[in-house]
């Protein structure tokens, strides 16, 4: 009998799906992923969530609920800190407990990462693996294999970004968390719209974490949120090589509202806009903003060409 583990297609899934899928695959455990975000999932999430939570958390609860009866377990990590002097946004700290208390009739698997207090990913995820495989050595091998696959995958993503940056044509950096950028309802329509209008999209996913941390210090020494540091790293690394920057923020995100403000003051010279997404968003408003942003970049490029010819 094969056990199945459900992976909600939200929050950290977009960062760690290769790690999780490879790990469970190596242990002969089948993974089931919730469908792409859709209106029904969002509506269910809104129903389950406390009003004040951000849209991504509402979507997350909708995805957890979508996996009910579809898998034996649902994996939700509890991420507190990934390095000393850093912290993850509170939603990653609370996701497990929020899901456990909000979504009825589910069995959760959790693992903790709190590097500041000596709790690391490897032993924690291995503990989860032992639920399915009593042979500890086999579980550790599965983890190490998954971790190297994850690194290989993210390195490839970074390379692909460099390839996009090397191409001619208009390039726009979209700064936003993976769980927003790659969500079917949040970031995807924006990325698709840009693509349809001939704009190459560079995402703020930046996987060289050591480099990201160094670069982030150039913008601010005090930002405590790990994933925001990665965004800052991407911004510093890419901003001179793109024609425009879009900050994608979901309402009401605390860390992002501070970060975006800080960044927009920093990127003087490169056209930039902030798009705030909420659960009631209208695509018409987004299109107006994106279209005019593209017009603006084109006007700037035309002028640069004229100035250059002179």
């Amino acid at each position, binding site marked *: 009998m094969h056990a199945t583990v459900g992976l909600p297609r939200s929050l950290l899934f977009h960062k760690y799906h290769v790690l999780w899928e490879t790990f469970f695959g190596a242990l002969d455990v089948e993974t089931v992923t919730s*469908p792409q975000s859709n*209106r029904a999932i969002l509506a269910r999430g809104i129903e389950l969530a406390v009003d004040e939570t951000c849209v991504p958390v509402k979507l997350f609860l909708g995805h957890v609920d979508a996996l009910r009866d579809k898998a034996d377990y649902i994996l939700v990590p509890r991420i507190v800190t990934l390095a000393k002097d850093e912290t993850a946004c509170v939603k990653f700290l609370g996701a497990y407990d929020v899901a456990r208390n909000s979504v009825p009739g589910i069995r959760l698997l959790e693992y903790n990462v709190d590097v500041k207090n000596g709790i690391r990913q490897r032993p924690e995820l291995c503990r989860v693996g032992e639920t399915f495989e009593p042979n500890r050595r086999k579980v550790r091998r599965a983890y190490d294999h998954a971790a190297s696959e994850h690194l290989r995958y993210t390195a490839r993503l970074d390379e692909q970004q460099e390839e996009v940056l090397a191409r001619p044509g208009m390039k726009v950096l979209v700064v936003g968390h993976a769980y927003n950028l790659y969500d079917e309802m949040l970031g995807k329509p924006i990325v698709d719209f840009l693509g349809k209008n001939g704009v190459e999209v560079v995402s703020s996913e930046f996987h060289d974490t050591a480099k990201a941390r160094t670069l982030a210090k150039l913008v601010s020494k005090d930002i405590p949120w790990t994933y925001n540091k990665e965004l800052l790293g991407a911004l510093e690394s890419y901003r001179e090589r793109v024609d425009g920057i879009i900050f994608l923020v979901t309402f009401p995100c605390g860390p992002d509202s501070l970060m975006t403000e800080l960044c927009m003051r920093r990127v003087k010279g490169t*056209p930039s806009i*902030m798009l705030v997404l909420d659960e009631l968003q209208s695509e018409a408003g987004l299109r107006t903003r994106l279209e005019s942003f593209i*017009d603006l970049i084109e006007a*700037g490029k035309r*002028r640069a060409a004229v100035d250059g010819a002179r």
Partner: protein
Amino acid sequence: MSKAYLGVDVGSISTKGVVIDADGEVLARSYLWTEGNPVRAVKRVLAELEAQVDGDAVEVVSVGTTGSARELTGAVLGAQVVKNEITAHAVGTLSRHPDVRTIFEIGGQDSKIIIVRDGVPVDYAMNTLCAAGTGSFLSSQARRLDVPVEEFGEHALRSKRPTKIAGRCTVFAESDLVHKAQIGHKLDDIIAGLCAAIVGNYLNNVGKGKEVLGPIVFQGGVSKNVGVVRAFEKATGHEIQVDDDGHLMGALGVALVARDSGLETPFSFGVRDVTFETVGEECSGCPNDCEVVIVLREGAYLDGWGNRCPRGMERVRERVCAQEGSLAGAE
């Protein structure tokens, strides 16, 4: 026959139209309320414009639409150009004020700032989730105070001591306004305070972090309110220019874009007499339940949007057309 170009700007509150000649001179202008029915408003604008142009001397060869109903209007008029209102406003304003460096714009439901340097728009911002400080906010406060919104400016100018009104949020502004009236502030002072609150809100939200340099042009419906104009001058320290045609800049801009597009198809004002109908329906083919809108011209499919996938459009189109067919058959 000389060539002319039509620009139509359909906003949430008002609908604007201009006909220009090849030099960008305005031959005809129209401005009226949308009243929640963009197609009817556009037809009325067309009637007003047609009455002002000499049909034997000029021929409209290209049409542009802008504003929040630009897509629908574009389909109805068979427009060559459908442009977002930010670009349209920038183009229109630059044609009249080539030296402008900042454009303030406050409309019925949105507000924006466009930063222009050396005749090229380089940056812009638009209000995000909140409509506080836009025209509809002023109108609703005017109703509460029982003063026609058109007279707000005069009242504000009479005030010597503007009352401080919390302008952060429409809901709070409203309760604050009632409170200030109850404790005895004068009507003129309250209205002046309201104008200042709008300006403060605009500069702190939409204008946040933007380098506001003169010359500044202020447009949109709210620019007709001298109280707000004065409040802007006080807050920025710059003279604020308000064009008599300020409310037409979007229409003018998109007419210019249509002219410069080089796309030409003879346009007939007769489109006024054609029956257009719009049908909005949820697809229900998948959990996304896209709201698909279909435009029918004399009962036949003309255009549609709102679908995330092509299947959605087909489903709704078939359903709607089948319905229309059965209705036609019953008659």
